[in-house]
C-alpha cells in the first residue's frame, strides 16, 4: 500500500508531520544483526499504539551463512495501519538495510521514491564484495529513485554506548536498537514499550540494559536533529474491536489451540512429532507447555510420530502430529490405518515449497491433493485449512472437534506464511470457546444371543463408531488394518461387506458437512466474478477483492476453510457468478477439485515462487477478467 496523499500537515518541532493510512516497512540486516528482535519491538509498540498490524519475517536459508553474504540476510516486514488490514503489505514505504547484502536482496521491494535508510559504516570494500557489488551503490547513482538516508549507524551506536563497560562485540550488538530508535522517531512511536522491555529483559545485566537504552534514545534523537529528514509520519489508531490482544503467529496459534481444545475436551494431549521446517516451532512451543498437561514426544521419524499419535488415540488421548510435505509422505500409510480403524488423530501439515526437499523455508499450497488422495485405496479424511495466523487457533480447534466427534483423522493444512506471519489476536474468553464433549463407552452396546457384547463397529446415526478404550472391563476388542466386518469389526474378505464399508467410510466424512458452517460470501450474492481460495491467501484475496469492489466491480469473495467435505452450499455459491477465479500458490489443486466436483469452468491464478501473493497480483487478474 503506497503512501496515500497527506491528510494533515502539521508543523511540529520544526518538522512536517504527514498522516498516513498505512505504512509498510522492512528492517533487513545480517542474521547476527538482530533484525527479528527490532521488528518484533516495532510491531508490539505499534500494536499498543492501536494500529492494526500484520508482519512477516524472512529468515535466511536453514544454515547460518557467513556474515555479510546474501544467503545470510534476515528481514522483518511490518505493515501497520489505521484501517483493518490482512497482509504484511506488498511494497515497502521504508527499508532499513544494515549492510550491502541486505540492500541488494531487499531493494527491489521498495516503492519508487521510498525511504531507504542504510548503515553507511557497513559499506566498506569487503562488505560490498561479499554482497557481490562491483561498485558502491551509495555512490554509483543506482539508488537515484529512492530517498536515501545514509547513517553511520555503527559509529553513532559506539559513541552512544562509549563509556559503558562492554566488549566491542557487545557494543556493536546494540546497533539494531539505534536503527529502531530512528524508525520510532520517523513514525512517531513512543519509546516506552521498548524501554520497558529492555528494563525487564536485561534486569540482570545493567551494562547491556544501559547500552540498549542509550542507543535507542540516540537513534530517536538523531532523527529529530538530523536535517536530512524533513518530514516524519503519523499513522493514527485503527478502529479495532475492543478487548485484550496479543500478537500471534500461526504456529503459536496452533500450539495454543491444541492445548485449549484438549483442555476443554478433557482429553490428555499427546503431541508426537519429528522436527521439520517450518513445523518444528509447534513442537518447541508445546514442549514448553508441560504444565498444561501436554505430553510431547520427539519421535525417531515421521512414521513413528503418527504411530505414537494413533497409539495415544487408541488409549483415549488426543493424538496429534505435525510435519511438512515430505513428512506427510511418510505418514500416509499410517493415516490409512487410522482411517480403517476409525481413530481420531489430527495431522498438521505446515506446507513448504516442493516437490521433494524443495524450498524448506518458503511457503506454498501444493499439498492439498496429497492430503485428499495421498494414500492407497479409497481413504477419505477430513481436511481443514486456516486462513490467517490467528485463524490457526480456531481451525485447529475445529480439527480436534471433527476428529473426536467423527472418529476420523483430520488434516489441518497450514503453510510457511501462516506459520511465521503474525497478527493481533483478540484473546478469547474461555467461556466463549466451543465445548467438545467426548464420551468413552463403559458398557457393552449389544445383546446378541443373551450375552452382552461390545461391537466396535456399531455406528450412530452419523455413522460414527464408539471410542472404547483399553482398561474398560467388558469392552475388550481388536481392531486393525484389514477390512472390517460391518458392526462386529471382525476381519472380513466378503465382497459386499467391503463395498459397504468403503461407502460407509466415505459417507461418514460426507456427513461432516452437516456440522460445519456454510460457505460465506464477502460481496454481492451474485455477480460477474467469484474469487474463491483456501488457506493463507485469504488476506491478499480479501484486500484485492475489496479494492475491486470499491472500484465498482461486481466481484465477491468466498474462502474455503473446510476442504473435505466442502460446505454444502459450495456448488450453489459457485453457480451464482458468471465466472470463477481460484488464486492458489500451486498449479491449480483446489481448481481441479471444484471443476471435477461441480463442473464449473473455474479459472486459476497460480503462483509457485515460495512467496505469498501480492495484493496487486490478484487485483490485476480480477480487473483483467472483468475489464
Amino acid at each position, binding site marked *: 500500500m503506497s503512501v496515500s496523499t497527506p491528510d494533515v500537515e502539521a508543523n511540529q518541532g520544526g518538522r512536517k508531520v504527514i498522516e498516513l493510512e498505512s505504512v509498510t516497512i522492512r528492517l533487513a540486516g545480517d542474521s547476527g544483526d538482530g533484525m527479528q528482535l527490532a521488528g518484533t519491538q516495532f510491531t508490539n509498540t505499534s500494536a499498543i499504539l492501536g494500529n492494526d498490524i500484520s508482519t512477516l519475517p524472512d529468515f535466511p536459508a536453514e544454515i547460518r551463512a557467513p556474515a555479510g553474504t546474501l544467503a545470510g540476510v534476515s528481514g522483518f516486514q511490518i505493515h501497520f495501519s489505521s484501517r483493518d488490514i490482512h497482509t504484511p503489505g506488498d511494497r515497502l514505504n521504508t527499508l532499513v538495510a544494515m549492510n550491502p547484502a541486505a540492500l541488494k536482496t531487499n531493494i527491489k521491494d521498495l516503492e519508487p521514491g521510498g525511504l531507504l535508510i542504510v548503515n553507511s559504516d557497513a559499506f566498506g570494500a569487503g562488505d560490498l564484495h561479499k554482497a557481490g557489488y562491483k561498485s558502491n551503490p551509495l555512490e554509483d547513482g543506482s539508488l537515484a529513485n529512492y530517498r536515501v538516508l545514509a547513517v553511520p549507524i555503527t559509529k553513532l551506536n559506539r559513541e552512544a554506548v562509549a563509556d559503558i563497560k562492554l566488549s566491542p562485540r557487545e557494543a556493536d550488538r546494540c546497533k539494531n536498537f539505534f536503527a529502531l530508535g530512528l524508525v520510532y522517531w520517523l513514525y512517531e512511536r513512543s519509546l516506552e514499550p521498548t524501554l520497558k522491555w529492555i528494563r525487564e529483559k536485561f534486569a540482570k545485566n545493567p551494562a547491556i540494559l544501559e547500552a540498549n537504552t542509550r542507543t535507542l534514545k540516540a537513534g530517536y534523537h538523531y532523527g529529530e536533529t538530523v536535517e536530512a529528514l524533513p518530514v516524519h509520519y503519523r499513522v493514527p489508531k485503527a478502529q479495532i474491536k475492543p478487548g485484550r490482544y496479543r500478537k500471534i503467529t500461526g504456529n503459536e496459534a496452533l500450539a495454543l489451540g491444541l492445548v485449549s481444545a484438549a483442555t476443554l475436551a478433557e482429553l490428555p494431549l499427546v503431541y508426537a512429532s519429528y522436527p521439520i521446517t517450518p513445523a518444528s516451532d509447534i513442537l518447541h512451543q508445546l514442549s514448553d507447555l508441560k504444565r498444561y498437561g501436554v505430553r510431547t514426544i520427539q519421535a525417531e521419524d515421521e512414521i513413528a510420530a503418527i504411530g505414537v499419535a494413533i497409539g495415544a488415540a*487408541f488409549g483415549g488421548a488426543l493424538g496429534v502430529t505435525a510435519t511438512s510435505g515430505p513428512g506427510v509422505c511418510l505418514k500416509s500409510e499410517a493415516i490409512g490405518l487410522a482411517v480403517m480403524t476409525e481413530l481420531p488423530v489430527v495431522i498438521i501439515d505446515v506446507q513448504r515449497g516442493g516437490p521433494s526437499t524443495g524450498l524448506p523455508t518458503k511457503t506454498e499450497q501444493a499439498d492439498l491433493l496429497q492430503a485428499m488422495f495421498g494414500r492407497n485405496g479409497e481413504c477419505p479424511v477430513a481436511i481443514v485449512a486456516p486462513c490467517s495466523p490467528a485463524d490457526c487457533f480456531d481451525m485447529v480447534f475445529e480439527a480436534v472437534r471433527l476428529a473426536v466427534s467423527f472418529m476420523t483423522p483430520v488434516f489441518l493444512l497450514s503453510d510457511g506464511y501462516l506459520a511465521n506471519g503474525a497478527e493481533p489476536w483478540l484473546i478469547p474468553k474461555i467461556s466463549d470457546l466451543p465445548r467438545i464433549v467426548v464420551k468413552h463407552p463403559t458398557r457393552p452396546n449389544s445383546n446378541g444371543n443373551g450375552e452382552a457384547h461390545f461391537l466396535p463397529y456399531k455406528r450412530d446415526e452419523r455413522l460414527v463408531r464408539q471410542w472404547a478404550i*483399553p482398561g474398560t472391563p467388558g469392552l*475388550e476388542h481388536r481392531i486393525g488394518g484389514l477390512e472390517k466386518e460391518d458392526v462386529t469389526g*471382525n476381519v472380513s474378505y466378503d465382497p459386499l461387506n467391503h463395498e459397504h464399508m468403503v461407502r460407509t467410510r466415505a459417507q461418514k466424512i460426507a456427513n461432516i458437512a452437516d456440522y460445519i458452517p456454510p460457505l460465506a460470501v464477502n460481496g454481492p450474492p451474485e455477480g460477474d466474478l467469484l474469487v474463491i481460495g483456501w488457506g493463507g491467501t485469504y488476506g491478499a484475496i480479501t484486500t484485492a477483492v475489496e479494492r475491486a469492489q470499491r472500484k465498482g466491480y461486481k466481484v465477491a469473495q468466498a474462502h474455503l476453510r473446510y476442504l473435505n467435505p466442502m460446505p454444502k452450499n459450495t456448488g450453489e455459491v459457485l453457480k451464482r457468478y458468471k465466472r470463477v477465479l481460484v488464486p492458489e500458490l500451486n498449479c491449480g489443486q483446489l481448481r481441479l477439485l471444484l471443476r471435477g466436483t461441480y463442473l464449473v469452468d473455474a479459472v486459476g491464478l497460480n503462483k509457485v515462487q515460495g512467496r505469498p501473493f501480492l495484493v496487486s497480483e490478484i487485483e490485476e487478474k480480477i480487473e483483467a477478467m472483468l475489464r
Partner: protein
Amino acid sequence: MATSSTTNPVPVLQPKDLASDQEVRWCPGCGDYSILAQMKKALAGLNIPREKLVFISGIGCSSRFPYYMNTYGFHTIHGRAPTIATGLKICRPDLSVWVITGDGDGLSIGGNHLIHAIRRNVDLKIILFNNEIYGLTKGQYSPTSRIGTRTKSSPLGSIDNPLRPLSIAIGAEATFVARTIDVDVNHLTETLRRAAAHKGTAFVEVYQNCKIFNDGVFEYATDKSIKADNTLYLEHGKPLIFGKDRTKGIRLNGLEPEVVTLGQGVTVDDLLIHDEKAEEPSLAYLLSRMVYPRFPECVGVFRCVERPTYDELLNKQTEEVIRVKGRGKLEDLFASDDTWVVE
C-alpha cells in the same frame, strides 16, 4: 471383534478366558500355536485383569496373534507396532502393553522403531517370533535367514549376512533380553512371565518353526536327540554348562568363548559364570554371538537390569513442573506473551 463381556472380571483368569471367539488361522503345525497357548498360560497366572492387557502387532502370520486373545488388541501396519505401543503406553501407564512381531516385521521394515523403543526403554514386552522367513507373504528369506537360504526370492541362496536379534537389541542398550523356543513350553511360559515382570522394554526372541516355508530350521535346538548338545540354558549366577550329560561348558579365552569338556583338568570353576545383572552388557553381547554349530546357542535371560522407563520419565517431567509451578490455566497461557488492551 465382538467379545463376550464380564463387567467385573474374575480375579484369577484361566487360560481359556483369554481366548477370543475368533477361529485361529495358522497353518496346521505352526509354532505360533504353542506361543499362543503359553502366552495364555503365562498371563493367566499373573492376574492382570483382561481389560488391562493390550496386544499390538505389525503384519505377518505372527502378527495375527492379537485377534486370538480376548484382550484389547491392535493389528497395526507392517513394522510400526512399537511406535503405536509407545503412544499407548505413555498415556496409559496402567496398561500391560505387549508387542508381537516377526523377524521381518521387527527387523526388516521395523528395525528402526524396534531399536528406538529399546533404547528409550519404553515399558513394553516385545515378543519377536523368529522363524527366519517371511511366512505371510509365502516364503521369502528374512533378515535372520542364514546365508545360502534358498527361497522364492533367493533361488540361488541368500547372500545377505543375517542380523542376530539379540545382538542388535543389546547394541541398542536393551535392559531385558531373552531367548526361548516355541516347543519348549515350560521355558517359554517362564520366559514370558519374566518379561511381564520386567519394568522397561523386555525383548524376547522366540525360535518359531514355520511348518510350511522353513520347516525344521531350528531342529538342532528342538530335536530331543541332539538339542542338549546344541543349546545352553542360562541361569543367573550359574556356570555355563550344557550337553546331554552336562559335561560340557563355556570358558573364556581372553574375550573369546570356547567350548571345554569337564573332566580332564577342566573344572566347573574354570567356566564362565552367567550374570544377567552385569552392569555392562558385554557378557550378554558375547553370549549373543554364540551360534550353532560352532557353539551351543544360549537360551534364557541374557540380560535383566533396571533403568528408568521412558513413559515413567515423561510423565514424571510433566507431574514435576505441575507440582512446582502448578497446573497451567488457559488464561495464563493466552497471556503468556505481551498483551495490550484496545478500549
